[in-house]
């Protein structure tokens, strides 16, 4: 399966849209030609998938999988090198009382903290993800955003989490959003690009679907719900809509794109609901931390508590997991 890395996004977009020149009008026609999302049906389906009962060995498997899918995140103005080192150390050893606990997929920090995270993680198989492009608002000039991305990549980031320009999207300037994603993708080089759509600001599921397709068209390797700074952040219906988009995108182009819900997922129960939805909507191919991630910080503690309960047979408590300072996640 090919990835979007070495594809010229504009040429491919022209192909897909069947136009000789990529204009905002052409993009608008294409995106608005996507079928609308049935809001009631979508929410009912998400609610239905939330009621599945996952027990015993399936639950143990799901907990370990969910831990391995976490992008352990700290995105605070008050982040210190010490806090980032602490977070990276937690990623290496999520539960000191049980070394069989898997590591999260990545540590997600601001661009200037990438070297600290990189040094702490060493050769371990935990990626460093950096938010860039004037996160979280995305309100800066294109040049500044791209410089932000290049800087993070030079510092050793394996993955870049960009935010789209929601203002341009809502104003109907899809071409600007497309170019921004495409140029950011180019600036990423070998780093994987996650495109944050900030679904809490997009108002409707139709917009979520359009933004998902637009992000994939621009070359995003992942589509991500939220920055975690806006409420509502990730919700199950929104994630379901995005999972349908990546499934349909693969049917259309043969390329697989990942999904990352972020923000507001705090309990193991929530995480397992998402995994059920991934399995039912996108399919088993996405049940892997290369294709599905949780942007979270406190979720890890709850998963570890559940894991301890399953291992020891006794309910565990906050005294037996790391005390990470609360963040927006």
């Amino acid at each position: 399966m090919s990835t979007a890395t070495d594809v010229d996004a504009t040429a491919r977009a022209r192909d897909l849209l069947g136009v000789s020149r990529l204009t905002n009008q052409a993009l608008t026609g294409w995106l608005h030609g996507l079928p609308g999302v049935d809001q009631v049906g979508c929410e009912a389906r998400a609610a239905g998938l939330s009621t599945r009962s996952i027990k015993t060995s399936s639950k143990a498997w799901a907990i370990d999988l969910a831990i391995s899918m976490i992008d352990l995140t700290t995105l605070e103005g008050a982040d210190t090198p010490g806090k980032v080192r602490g977070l990276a150390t937690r990623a290496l050893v999520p539960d000191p009382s049980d070394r069989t606990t898997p590591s999260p997929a990545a540590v997600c920090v601001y661009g200037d903290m990438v070297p600290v995270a990189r040094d702490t993680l060493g050769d371990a198989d935990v990626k460093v993800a950096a938010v860039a492009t004037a996160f979280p608002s995305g309100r800066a000039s294109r040049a500044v955003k791209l410089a932000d991305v290049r800087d993070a990549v030079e510092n050793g980031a394996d993955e870049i989490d960009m935010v789209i320009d929601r203002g341009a999207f809502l104003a109907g300037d899809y071409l600007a959003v497309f170019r921004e994603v495409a140029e950011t993708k180019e600036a990423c080089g070998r780093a994987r690009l996650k495109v944050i759509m900030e679904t809490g600001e997009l108002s409707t599921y139709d917009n979520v679907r359009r933004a998902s397709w637009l992000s994939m068209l621009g070359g995003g390797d992942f589509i991500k719900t939220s920055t975690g700074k806006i409420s509502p952040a990730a919700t199950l219906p929104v994630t379901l809509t995005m999972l349908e988009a990546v499934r349909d995108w693969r049917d259309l182009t043969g390329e697989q794109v990942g999904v990352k819900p972020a923000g507001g997922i705090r309990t193991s129960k929530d995480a397992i609901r998402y995994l059920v939805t991934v399995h039912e909507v996108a399919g088993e191919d996405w049940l892997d931390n290369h294709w599905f991630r949780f942007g979270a910080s406190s979720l890890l503690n709850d998963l570890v508590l559940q894991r301890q309960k399953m291992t020891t047979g006794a309910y565990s408590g906050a005294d037996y997991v790391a005390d990470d300072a609360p963040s927006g996640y």
Partner: protein
Amino acid sequence: MSTRVDVRKTYKLYIGGAFPRSESGRSYEVLAAPTGRRSTPRFLANAAQGSRKDARDAVVAARKAQPGWASATAYNRGQVLYRVAEVMEGRRAQLVSDVRDSEGLTAARAEAVVSAAIDRWVWYAGWSDKYAQVLGGLNPVAGPYFDISAPEPTGVVAVLAPQASSLLGLVSVLAPVIVSGNTCVVLASQARPLPAVDLAECLATSDVPGGVVNVVTGRTAEVAPWLASHRDVNAIDLTGAADADGVDWGGLELAAAENLKRVLRPGGTGATAVEPDFGPTPDLSRLSAFLETKTVWHPKGR
């Protein structure tokens, strides 16, 4: 003359200031204590049959409420607890009726038990801003320091309420736990849960913050082991393990040892555990059983 249909009651649990049903959906019949004349025991009400997951939820609620309750001033805690006694006095008729049915007492005896229970509550409420002077103090040290020992609450306490004394006994084990700033999960008497449900209704309509007291009704032997082994419970009062069906209180102590819980044993020795007599005015031993001592050295200067 018209005959009115009975309003049959199905009581619920009291967790985090709300009255949820058991997550298991189960309930059980509560029967009146046999009084001699009747051969078949009289049906009183249905009570929720709490499960391990209800106990888990109750511990979460208690943990959440603990910092706020502990940081309330001693004076404030005393006022809040006194208010509970006021509400109990207002619901006196209901308490008397339920104690009488549950314990098979005469009307006069039930009145006396309820009075004693309310008085016991007031007695403990009064201790809220006094126990620190009695149980803590200034230690003489060889140096220019004040050396102060101050009692602090242990945290979340699981309480197995006495099986026989359903109200006076309950108040006598519950009040000393919360007066110092602990929060608790109470496992009500298995056969006599109604006075505990009444007390929960008193607490819900007083000023006690939700989660400070959580009441789970059900089978003691089923739920107690989960509380005893729960790592987020800091202490357990095993009083109600005495005379409870199928409860091995030694086993509960063993489970409690896993995270070094404070354990208050039931009365008696060995396997012959007995429920204490809650009649006489108590001492501070139940209060001090759920306290930690913080000792502070402070330079005195000259």
